[in-house]
Every structure is written in structure tokens, then in C-alpha cells.
């Protein structure tokens, strides 16, 4: 069943996710939405890992484990990012990224 789906399908999905994430990261002004976009980018990479592992080296598990590590790091990163966002909110009374440019020059 799964063998009938070619690898390129997975890659198309992950590429779409990746560029949706990039697009969201570049266009959304809300920090929370930007964080969600970053998660999309990470997950597209995870799909690549798993797919390549499954199709190229079915006997090995490195890709799976690497995916788990990325998920763990992404969770930690989300925690830190949300903490930063809370602090930004306290300082600027807003989580709009356009306002967070006061440390320039």
C-alpha cells in the first residue's frame, strides 16, 4: 500500500509546506503566527527525513531518530520563543513584529 506511493509525492508535500512556512514567516506580522510558520518549516524537513529514510535505507533508522531530535528541539524552541513573545508583549503592549525595531541604530 504505502509502497505504491512514490517518493516524489512526499517531497512535493514537504516542499509546499516549506514554502507556505516561508511565506507565512515573511508576510505575517503577528509573532505567534510567525512562530507557527517556523514550525511548518521544521515539520516539512521532518517529512523529508522520514521519507528519505523509508525509501532509500529501509533497514536503518537514523532519519527517524533525527526527526525525533528535531521535534524535541522544536518544542524547546517554542517554549523559549513564547517566553520572549510574552516579554515583548509586556514591553510593547503588542506582539506585532513591526513594532519590535526599537533597538536599531
Amino acid at each position: 500500500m504505502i509502497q505504491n506511493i512514490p517518493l516524489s509525492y512526499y517531497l512535493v508535500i514537504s516542499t509546499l509546506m516549506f514554502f507556505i512556512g516561508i511565506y507565512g514567516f515573511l508576510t505575517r506580522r503577528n509573532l505567534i503566527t510567525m512562530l507557527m510558520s517556523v514550525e511548518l518549516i521544521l515539520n516539512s524537513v521532518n517529512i523529508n527525513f522520514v521519507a528519505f529514510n523509508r525509501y532509500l535505507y529501509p533497514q536503518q533508522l537514523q532519519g527517524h531518530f533525527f526527526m525525533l531530535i528535531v521535534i524535541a528541539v522544536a518544542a524547546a524552541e517554542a517554549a523559549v520563543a513564547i517566553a520572549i513573545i510574552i516579554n515583548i508583549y509586556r514591553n510593547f503592549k503588542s506582539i506585532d513584529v513591526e513594532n519590535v525595531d526599537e533597538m536599531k541604530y
Partner: protein
Amino acid sequence: MADYTYTLLIPLIPLFVFVLLGLTGHKMKPVVSGLIGTSGLGISAILAYATAFKYFWTGHATGTAYTSIKAFEVSWLHLTDKLTIHLGALIDPISVMMLVVITTVSLMVHIYSIGYMKGDPGFYRFFSFLSLFSFSMLGLILATNIFQMYIFWELVGVSSFLLIGYYYEKPSAVAASKKAFIVTRFADLGFLIGILMLSFNTGTFDFQTLTDPHGPAIASVGGAAFMGMSVLTWSLIFIFVGGAGKSAMFPFHIWLPDAMEGPTPVSALIHAATMVVAGVYLVARLFPVYALAAPDALHVVAWVGGFSSIFAAVIACTQTDIKRVLAFSTMSQIGYMMLALGVSGFGGEDGLGFMASNFHLFTHAMFKALLFLGAGAVIHAVHSNEITDMGGLRKHLPITHITFLIACLTIAGIPPFSGFFSKDEILAAAFHSNKFLFAIEYIVAGLTAFYMFRLYYGIFWGKNTHYHHTPHEAPKVMTIPLMILAFGSIFAGFLPFHNLVTSDGKGFESHIDWMIAIPSVLIGVIGIIIATIMYKKPTAIPDKLAGTFKNLYKWAHRKFYMDEVYLYVTRKIIFRYISAPIAWFDRHIVDGTMNGIAGMTVWAAYAIRGLQSGKLQQYAFVFVGGTVVLVLIFVYLV
């Protein structure tokens, strides 16, 4: 040979006291810090007396020459095998004599200051500086080599600077301290050049090697010559320039009158008895080199001394600030000492001038310290330095009056006070060497008697000034040092100096030459009589005389415009034609380069600061765009 290592303690105790008072003095009661300073110096004085007694009498076989003993020496800076700087203690007749002079005067000044400085907010600071000065001066005296002497030479300069500027709230005191420091420092440049030339040519800093009559230093006379004189002569002249700066000889004397801004005990200690004779000591220390290898340099010493003595004596006759009169008198007396050294020969009876100079140094320290401390007691009572504010004080200050009179008689050279003996030896030495200088010294002796008694009558007799509150005699702690010093002034003349401090260490027979002594006493008496006529009662004679010799009086009163000449030379010539272009170069070229570099950086930063916009998404866009471009390049072009 006896062991003199303990002489090291004589300078080290004041150093310890300086550190102790400097660090913890502000926590002590003022009187405690005064007592610590005084007792520290008392111990030093006792050690110095013990050293003198041992060196001159008990530890010395009669009939033999006094040798110079290196009590202690360490190698302090080992730069190369040839260039090593030592620190140590050298014991020989002049250093032992100076130990006694300095510890005595310093001890008296310490005791006196407890009374004089009472209630001053910087009491402990004053005593710590006094200790620093005593340490530096004693170190200078005991120096085993010329470089150690130079180090301590600068240290006494610093202590003098600190003490002249003691009342640092007063702008005039600050200016005076700067002036003293800069003028002496300028002269010290000559000293340094002299040291370098001398030690380069002789290969040693060590005094014992340098002054050994058969040593390599004196044997090297036949060295290179420059402008008609040997390099050795030039180096000794340069060294004398340093000595002249410290000893306020013409033309470096301008700092001494202004130095009177310091507290009076300081003037007594530093600017009358000890530091200003450092120049005399320096020449005396190197005397064999001067006398045997460079008689030309010795002539310079004699003429500078002679000129300074008469120059200062004339000025002293017209000054109205009592401390300034004493300052010029000091300069005049030091001129005497320099002259005596300058006319002296080496060895035996030829060394009469050397002996006389040191003798006069010794007696002068006593009576001049007494004069200054007496003046301090007067100032303490009247709260003014001006002679015009005084008069008729003999009833109010009996002890000060008597001791001041003794000191005046001593400096005027009236027998049997000590000044008579030492001045007589100087006149005798001058008589045998140079009749012209001898004549000058006779005139100076008369002038000295005149201006000292002008001062004396002006303070203690003269008009009956009305005082706001009746002046009262100084406390015991101030009058007792006066009495001790008066005692010294009277009896110091009976010391057998010709057996103790001589140029070659051997004693010689000396007797008073009445052919010289009687006229010198007479001329002193004449000076006193003139002063008595003019100043004992308020008369019109002084004003009339000043009117008759209007120009001379004005010139002398303005100190022959030496300050103005210096100001003209520094402001109008050095500042305008040398300093101003250098300042311009510094401001525009050196600073300009640096400012230009900084300006370029600022400009570049403004130019590129738009890149650092702080807009997160802009950064991300550039990053993603860059990645895409790189990928396209690698995929399609490479």
C-alpha cells in the same frame, strides 16, 4: 672598622612614620600623629648623634685620616653587568655632619610644629609630609652613588612641592609650589645630563671610586675636550646647575622667595636649613673631582656663589615681608658656602674653603632655622607677614625677642657667636684665593648685618603698633626649640671643625686670622649701627634714602625684575615661538589624524546603518532571497 649598618635606620624610621601617618593619620587625634612624627624623628636624631660621636671620637684613632665607610649597599637595579644601580649608606665626615644637622633641625621643627600647626585640619598630613621630607633628605645624604643621590634629590623636590602647596586652597600657594617644582626640575635636567656625562666618561656612579684622588675618574682628565674645556669639566658644570637649582643660586633663585607661601616651620626646615644646602652638599661630595680634575668648574661655582650672595643681600635690604627677607638672606648665605667651596683647594690647609663651607653650612642651619622659627612665632602672634604691621613686639614676645636677637648677631658675624667663626674661615679662604671675591664678601657681610637688624628693629622696636588683640608669647612647645637652637647658634662655633670635616679627611691647624676677622667684625658692627640709626625709632631717613636712590631702590624692591624677565622669556619667547607652533602641530596634525579616523568611522556607520533596520522580516527575506540566488547559481551555473 666599626660597624655602621644601623645608620640605615636613620632614614628608614621617618619613611615608616610617613607611611603610617599617611595611611592611618586621619583616624588619629591630631596630637597623637604629631607625637608619633616627633618621636620617630627623635629616634633618628639619637642614632645620628650616636653615629657622629662614634665616627668622630670613639671609633676613630687620633691622628689618622677619616675614611669613608660604606655601611651598607645592595644592588637595586641590575640592568647590565656594567650598568648597575646600588642603594646604600655612605659614612664619611660630611655625611655624618649632615646627618646631625638634618636630624637636629628636623626634630626642632617637628616639636615646634606641634604648637604652630595646632588646630589645622591637615595636621597629620603635615607631619606625614615632614617625615617624607626627612626620609628623602637623609637618603640623599647617605647616598653611596650619584644615581641614588639623584633619586632622593627628586624625592626632596617632591616633598618640597607638597609642603609649599600645603595650603592648597590658596591659589598663591599652589602657584608657588608649581613654580618651585618646575624651576628646580628644570635645573635637575642639567644635573641628569651631568650625571650621564660623568658616569659615561668614568664608567662608575660610585662616590668612593669617583672621588678617590688616585682613582680612574680623576685620572681620566685628559679625555675629549669641547669648547676649550674637558668633558669632565662640562659634566661637573652641568651637575652644578642641578645644585644651583636646588640651592636657589642665581639665576635659578626665583622659586625661593615664593616658596615662603608654605607654613613657616617648612620654610625653616626645607628652605633654610636642609634642602637648599643640598647643592652645597653635592659639590662638597664631589669636591675632589672638582678640585683636582676641573678647576674651571670650581671657578664657575665660586663666581655664581659670589654673585648670588651680593645680589640676594641687596634685594633683602628692600623687602618688607619678613619671610622673604629671610629667604633672600638664605640665598645670600648659601652663596657664601658655594663661594667658599669654589675658592678652596684640595688637601691640608689648602682645603680651608671646603672646611669653611661645611662649617658655615652647619652654623647657618642652626641660626637660620632659629630665625625662621622666630619669625614663625612672630607671625603666629601678629597674623601678618608684613614688617609694616609689626613693631614694639619686644615686650609682648620676650623669649622670641632674645632668641631672634642672638640669631641676628650670629648671622651678622659678631663674636663669640658661631657665625663669626664660620664666616671668618670663609673670608680667610677667599682672601688667599681671589681678592675681588673677598671684597664682595666684605660688602655682603656689611649688608647682611644691616638687613638683619633692619628686620630685627622693624619687628621688635620701631613704632608702637596698635594691635587688635594683644600679641602673646608662643606656647612652650614652640619656645623650647627656639632656645635649643639659640644655644646651638651660640656654641656651634667652638666645634673643632678643622679637625673633623676636611677635604682629605686629615685634620689641620686652623687659627683665627685677626687681620681678616677684625675688619669683618667692624663692618658688621657698622651695618648694625646704621640699621640702629635708621630703624630703632621711626625716622624719615629710610624714606629719604629710598627717595634719593629711587631707581636702585625700586629695582631692588622688585628683585631686579628677575621674575619679569623669566615671564618675558617664557611667555613671549618660549610660549609664542616654540610652544605655540608645537601646540598647533599637536592640535591640528596629531589630533587631526586621530579625529579624521574617528570621523571616517562615523561617516561609514551612518552610510550603512540602514541595513541594521531591526525589521525581522526584512532580514529573513534577504536571507531567503540570498539562499534562492545561491541555489540557482549552484544548480544552473556551476
